[in-house]
């Protein structure tokens, strides 16, 4: 049964789509976690859901609606470049309202309820060849953006004050980060769903940062964890017909726990107690 499924075209498509999304999520996650913007990922994702629900009601492609919703919120959050508590409460307020709208749109939508479930929890095995092509195209854009702006993105995420003093356009890069994040989120929603985007965007990056302080290595480790979680989750769901998203989030979480345990040992070497 399992080997039979492995020969299926839709499984290949799922594995490819999952791989693309994992690479993107793992890469952008490091910048997002470093900025302390994990909560923003949730907001962008939920507003992506609102956009998709609106698209369903209006009768066009939910993926387009999702991109629209995510990009809109991403742009707003990037422009505001809020920090700390102010940002958290602003995001919370926007997120709650967006979800409320999404609920309204869903109640107005007369079509199949599975569409909504797929949005919330993901439907990796339902990815079509056309969707895969779109995923790859968007992924290429995001990765080019990250590579082209790598150093100033890192500088402005880690050390915004000095970056600004050195002439780095900190505000523009904040907008860029959130736009790249919005595109990544819209991609990840198609694999793991709105409610589980954090498992690919945040968890692998947070785990990686526990294992290495080298920024380039952290990004690579984050990508590897996201890849193992996604592909592993898809394969496990073929062997055991539980939701793919469950397996993906479990592997991702296991990596995070493992990294925390490993880090505790490394902490001794870093001389944690000497920190003044």
């Amino acid at each position, binding site marked *: 049964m399992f080997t039979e499924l492995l020969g299926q075209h839709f499984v290949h498509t799922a594995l490819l789509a999952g791989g693309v999304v994992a690479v993107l999520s793992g890469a952008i996650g490091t910048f997002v976690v470093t900025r302390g913007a994990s909560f923003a990922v949730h907001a962008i994702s939920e507003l992506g859901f609102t956009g998709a629900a609106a698209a369903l009601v209006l009768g066009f492609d939910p993926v387009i609606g999702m991109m629209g919703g995510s990009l809109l919120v991403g742009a707003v959050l990037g422009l505001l470049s809020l920090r700390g508590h102010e940002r958290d409460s602003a995001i919370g307020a926007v997120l709650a309202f967006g979800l409320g709208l999404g609920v309204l749109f869903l109640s107005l939508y007369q079509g199949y309820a599975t569409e909504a479930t797929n949005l919330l929890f993901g439907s990796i095995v339902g990815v079509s060849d056309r969707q895969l092509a779109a995923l790859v195209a968007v992924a290429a854009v995001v990765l080019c953006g990250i590579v082209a702006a790598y150093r100033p993105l890192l500088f402005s995420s880690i050390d915004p004050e000095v*970056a600004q003093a050195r002439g780095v356009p900190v505000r523009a890069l904040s907008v860029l980060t959130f736009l790249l994040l919005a595109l990544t989120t819209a991609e990840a929603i198609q694999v793991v769903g709105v409610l589980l985007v954090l498992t690919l965007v945040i968890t692998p990056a947070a785990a990686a940062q526990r294992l290495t302080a080298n920024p380039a290595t952290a990004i690579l480790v984050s990508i590897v964890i996201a890849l193992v979680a996604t592909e592993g989750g898809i394969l496990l769901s073929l062997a055991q017909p539980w939701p793919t998203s469950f397996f993906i989030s479990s592997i991702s979480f296991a990596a995070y726990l493992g990294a925390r345990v490993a880090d505790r040992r490394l902490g001794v070497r870093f001389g944690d107690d000497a920190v003044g």
Partner: protein
Amino acid sequence: MSTDADPVVRAHRVSLRFGPRVLWDDLSFDLHRGEFMAVLGPNGTGKTSLVRILLGLLAPSAGTVSVTGRPPAAVRGEIGCVPQQRAFDRDAPVRGCDLVRLGLDGHRWGLGLHSRASDDRVSRALAAVGAAAYAELPVGRLSGGEQQRLRIAQALVSDPALLLADEPLLSLDLASQRTVVDLLDRRRHEAGTPVVFVTHDVNPILRVADRVLYLAPGRWAMGTPAEVLTTETLSRLYDTPVDVLRVRDRVVVVGTPDADGVHHHDHAPAGPG
């Protein structure tokens, strides 16, 4: 083409106002190679604003500022900045050497694959501040003093024409304060890089400062530390009796309106409003 005799910083009749509030008026000074200028004064007198003006991040309300003969914004990449010590996230994926390297090429586009030359510059900057031993450790797990050494290496690695330090001693122990001041002092003697050093406490920089710019609410005074840090000058500046005491090697200023650091009196010149 500028020569060594030209000032590195030239401020000409600079004013800073926020609405009706005048922070300073008609501020002029030249800063030459090798000079160490301390900017003193209580909170809210525009010390950090002066740094931002020198970086071209803030436009003065009136007057002109030039750095190496050009508008500050055009020179930004040639100014080294040492900020306040701040807590890095414990897990921030950045090591000491990464922080220093960002000071060298963090403003450039692309991945920035390491070259022999850039590696050498980073290691030299780390060695110069005595931070080589912990260059590979996560910055978030270093002490405040260690982080500030890295900050100085980060500011020096690009071989700047001017060094701006904005309260770099805050929350450091006395030994680390001394190290930071000594490193900047050595740089200006060895390479001639002038230093603008913003601080609310004069004592750590008393032995190295050539000049003091004292900002008080609405007014300023400039001169050598011996000229400015006197009972007469500060009483005139604050427009209220202020005592400057010398206790052993330390200067203690008593009686400034903001002495308890809580309330601020704005002595803006009388005018409408």
